[in-house]
């Protein structure tokens, strides 16, 4: 029997019907979701056959021939479950625009330069304390067509699984003090202010490397087990 997950706290997530983000209009279900309680399959842990993590997968500044342009940063933090337990060995996948706000994907037509030295894709595994760490450049803001003068605040996309399919999370990490926050319907789709702030990294002196990179800390919390499972302890 798989361990059930907590069902509380999920109201932090955005409502899928968010008219200010126009693309939600035809892409959210109108019928009520059917509750599934403790399903074995969704509580199982997926195995990604994407191959082993290569030594430079976490360093987005060292994957091509030379140094990408932009502000070099370290992004680090801990991945924990909703009970505070660190999630070790957790695959963290990230992707982002370059320093000019352009993705290295053909469909991105933003008139900003590509950077031959920046792919914008990284992955790593969390250590025993649940800590992940990436080296990258700060992504630029970029325009989109949602509304007049629509610009996304700088962000890094994150993808994680936690212990189960049911703890899956895809989200975006933002940078502190970005003036675009109030105008961004994607970020503002999270209506609870405290929850919204949990998507914003903090400048962090400990993560900063002297003469080399500024550091940002961003912790991630995924759904935790509904009941603490105690292991049998002898004696």
């Amino acid at each position, binding site marked *: 029997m798989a361990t059930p997950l*907590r069902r*509380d*706290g*999920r109201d*932090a*997530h*955005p*409502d*899928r019907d*968010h008219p200010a*983000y126009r*693309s*939600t*209009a*035809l*892409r*959210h*279900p*109108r019928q009520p*979701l*059917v509750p*599934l309680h*403790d*399903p074995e*399959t*969704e509580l*199982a*842990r*997926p*195995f*990604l*056959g994407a*191959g082993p993590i290569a030594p430079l997968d976490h360093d987005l500044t060292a994957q091509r021939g030379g140094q990408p342009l932009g502000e070099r940063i370290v992004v680090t933090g801990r991945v924990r479950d*909703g*009970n*505070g337990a660190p999630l070790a060995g957790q695959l963290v*996948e990230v*992707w982002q*625009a370059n320093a000019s706000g352009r993705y*290295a994907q053909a*469909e*991105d037509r933003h008139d900003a330069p590509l950077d031959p030295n920046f*792919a*914008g*894709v990284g992955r790593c595994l969390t250590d025993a304390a649940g800590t992940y760490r990436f080296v990258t450049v700060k992504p630029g803001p970029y325009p989109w067509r949602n509304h007049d003068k629509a610009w996304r605040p700088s962000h890094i*996309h994150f993808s994680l699984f936690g212990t189960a*399919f049911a703890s*899956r999370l*895809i*989200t975006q990490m933002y940078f502190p003090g970005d003036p675009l926050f109030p105008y961004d319907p*994607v970020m503002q789709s999270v209506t609870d202010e*405290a*929850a*919204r702030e*949990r*998507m914003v990294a903090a400048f962090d002196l400990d993560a900063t490397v002297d003469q080399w990179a500024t550091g940002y800390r961003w912790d*991630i*919390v*995924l*759904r935790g087990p509904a009941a603490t499972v105690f292991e049998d302890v002898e004696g």
Partner: protein
Amino acid sequence: MAVQELTPAQTVGPFYGFALPYPAGPVVAEGGSLRLRGTVFDGAGEPVPDALVEVLQADVDGRLDGGLFGRCSTAPEGRFAFTTVRPGPTADGCAPHLAVIVHARGLLLHLHTRVYFPGEALNAADPVLAVVPEDRRHTLIAVEEERGFRFDIRLQGEDETVFFDV
């Protein structure tokens, strides 16, 4: 118990295609002979070319500890396809099925659904299908084709796929 202050979800956005898909992603089970394909549609009946479909299933014996997982982008025409094996019934009494997650641009929080198989006798006793309104149950049953099964996902509108609050 401590407050569960979850990190909120955000859309996968339009530009994950250079990051999340990987060559073996559509192969759920190596050497499998079952082909599952489908199209993701929006509420206007248009294909969704920027969705990402992920599946998780039991092995042929119904065991889930193998973590059989697949990931397939719907670019460029809204279609996805997986190669896998037919899962066995799981220990919780569920008929053979695949758990499915749909991510997409315009979807702020991913959706969960399931693929069941047509003509499967165990469907009648499946505890999940049992709680789905009868007139919507067919949206969870794949359609048999010459070379496998087809499972279309309708995010909204007529014949909207049943999605689960997992």
